[in-house]
């Protein structure tokens, strides 16, 4: 009980409190609708299985946004990782091919970071240009969908650990722990300072450019892992497989309480935001397949409304997290006034 209240207190202080609450509420709604159909190992496993690439891409995006950037090329990077892993896997041993694909993502992160930090080009321009370039590169590597991976990889990625923990969820946990280690070092606060107030960081005697470069490399590492997870999930190559992830990851990061202007948010919140998207899709899919079927209303086939409803829920989620942000600002100001009045 004590641990629970301690946890609750910690959550309340968290910058991603709203995101956690939203996710929990949604899961409860989902449980009410689907009942046992949702609360079993295989359905939880498939939820994580499908959503791990998005969750990891969102964490990578969040790191980028922390340091004052934004990455429109995460999706294209993931496509390149996928295409390279599949094509190289036909010529060299699979582990080497996958390692190569991963390193490409890290190098791309470093390249983006280098251009943004040292050449001072706005990140939105750099990553937009690079995303077009990478979309082309992915098509060059793998002109049309195809290829396969050893079935052992898929069965490991799709498996469960200790009977109830999805391996894919474990990957997410490992990535979050990895970033937690970064956060325990001064670099964690420095990355956020680079996004919130560069001048302060410079005044503190820290090399701002190098800090940004480090953040982009960390983001590249996580993007690489996301790309490999997507490859394991799809078990084949597709040069356009990841492209949609760029914008989805930004939406998910905002849902997770990450402030687009930099310096505010947590990676845990970002992951929760992405999971929120996943659960929304899950519940809507269930409702439309099992409750609504092919019923019509006023001549409109209701199942056509699936996308619409999904996106309306996402918009509601986005506005509520933005509202929470506004409110937090007011609360902070109010606290300041109270302190002033006491003083």
């Amino acid at each position, binding site marked *: 009980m004590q641990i629970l209240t301690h946890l609750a207190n910690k959550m309340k202080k968290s910058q991603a409190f709203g995101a956690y609450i939203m996710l929990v509420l949604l899961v409860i709604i989902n449980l009410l609708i689907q009942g046992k159909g949702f609360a079993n190992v295989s359905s939880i496993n498939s939820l994580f299985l499908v959503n791990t690439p998005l969750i990891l891409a969102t964490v990578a995006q969040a790191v980028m946004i922390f340091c004052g950037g934004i990455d429109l090329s995460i999706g294209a990077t993931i496509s390149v990782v996928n295409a390279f892993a599949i094509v190289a896997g036909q010529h060299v041993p699979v582990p080497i091919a996958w390692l190569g694909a991963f390193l490409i993502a890290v190098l791309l992160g470093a390249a983006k970071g280098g251009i943004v930090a040292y050449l001072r080009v706005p990140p939105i321009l750099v990553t937009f240009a690079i995303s077009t370039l990478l979309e082309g590169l992915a098509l060059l590597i793998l002109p049309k969908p195809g290829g396969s991976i050893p079935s052992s990889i898929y069965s490991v990625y799709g498996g469960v650990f200790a009977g109830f923990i999805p391996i894919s969820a474990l990957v997410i946990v490992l990535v979050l722990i990895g970033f937690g280690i970064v956060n325990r070092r*001064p670099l964690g606060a*420095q990355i956020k300072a680079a996004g*919130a107030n560069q001048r302060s*960081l410079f*005044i503190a005697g820290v090399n701002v450019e190098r800090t940004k470069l480090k953040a982009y490399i960390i983001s590249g590492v996580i993007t690489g892992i996301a790309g490999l997870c997507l490859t394991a999930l799809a078990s084949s190559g597709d040069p356009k497989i990841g492209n949609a992830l760029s914008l989805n990851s930004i939406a998910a990061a905002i849902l997770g309480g990450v402030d687009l202007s930099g310096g505010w948010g947590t990676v845990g919140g970002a992951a929760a935001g992405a999971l929120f998207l996943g659960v929304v899709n899950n519940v809507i899919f269930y409702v439309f397949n099992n409750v609504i079927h092919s019923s019509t209303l006023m001549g409109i086939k209701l199942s056509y409304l699936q996308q619409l409803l999904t996106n309306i829920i996402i918009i509601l989620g986005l506005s509520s997290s933005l509202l929470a942000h506004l409110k937090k600002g007011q609360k902070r100001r109010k606290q300041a*006034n109270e*302190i002033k009045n*006491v003083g």
Partner: protein
Amino acid sequence: MLAAKNISKQYGQTKALDQAELSMKPGEIRALLGSNGSGKSTIAKVLGGLVGKNQGEITIDGEPIQLGSAKDALARGIALAYQDYSLVDQLTVEENLFLNPKEAIKKGFIDHKERSDKTLRILEQFHISAKPETYVSSLDESDKSLLEVAKALVYKPKYLILDEVTACLHRDQVLILFDILRKEKEEGLSILFISHRFDEVYELCETVTIFRNGKTVITTDLNKVTHDDIVYYMTGQKEAMKKQHQKKCASDQKEPLLSIRNLGVGCQVDDVSLKLYPGEILGICGLQGQGQSEFLRAVYGSKKISRGSITYRGKQLGKLSPERSLKSGMAFISGDRGSEGIFADRSIFENINISRGALRFIFRGIRLKESKSKADELIQRLNVVIGETSDPASSLSGGNQQKLIFARDLLLDLSVLLLDDPTKGVDVKARSEIQEILKELADKGMACIYYSSDYKELTAVADRIVVFYEGNITKEFCDISDEIESDLAAAMLGATRTEAK
């Protein structure tokens, strides 16, 4: 000993520093004085490694050093506390203090316990009412100023430069800070104290260096120079604050131009009633944060009023907004030029014409020639020192920027002008020029509500002074002379209230 010799620095056409000299000795607190634009902040930034110098040499104990970045300066033991803070709002107090830590680190990882212990000790020492894990954005200005100094001290510097850190502090906080600084001085720290407040300089410092127009005028012991000498060295002329009060006290006026009844704004303004008569300059006096800023903004319409009513020219105002206020001839000038006044990147011409243009119907044109000649005329009249009207406003000094904002509002045929500390950070000369402009306007029948953080300014220009304390008007002075200054100072501190009890 840290010495800077023949330092020159040029920003575009303006010479910020011209062969300036400055030195700092261990165990000494030196004041650096100068009017605005005299290069005080620039030399501080040069020594802090924030801006490069064009010429000159910096030495520590006779050995020349290069300061390419703030990192170099910190490595040499030079730390700065900035007037505009170097704190990250989104981080906590402890994260800010130990953003680039040399202590509280174990094998590259943060030692959270040690860090929070150290932070607690610092917060206690500076009497800041915050926890280590409080976000800096929720601190108020005075605590931020103290934290800024604390942050500089965390680096354990040998040379500490304080750039106007007391501007936002309450008196008791100033005393706490001075105690800490004296203690550090005893331990051999060398401190450079940049300030506008003469009293504090006399209280804390032993020696003084005075800058004028980027040059070092004199370096001497403080007890060898008087207040008047300092003003002379700063401005190059004897202090000339003439006072000519036309006696027009509120009571014998007829119809008030603006009458405010029981106005309240959030928790900052409690219950304020005021009458403003044509041709009157009404001074508001008070410590920082007593609700006067919110009051002025509420009257202007940029802040929501919670209670009360405002009657303007005999009509009660319903909905308030800056646009409506300007259209009806009520303007607001803030001392916070950067965020509430000037468009720094736009040209001087545009800055003057922005309000006039904005108030017109969207398709109604502006005659360029007429606007230009009017702008030129105003620049002449207000004695704004500019290069070309097409230069960006950022090329002007603070005082001239402020005059530019006056010019903007003068184009609008005003009847009421609300001023929130318009001479904040403006040098003595520009200050008296602004006061002249105000008096001239008042003679033509315009009414002013004028808040200033410096009560001496109010006694020089106002016809009537009210004192704000904790969101209320606690005292009103109708007879303005030098003698009431001590009464004013007492009223500002809420003395009348304790007497009543």
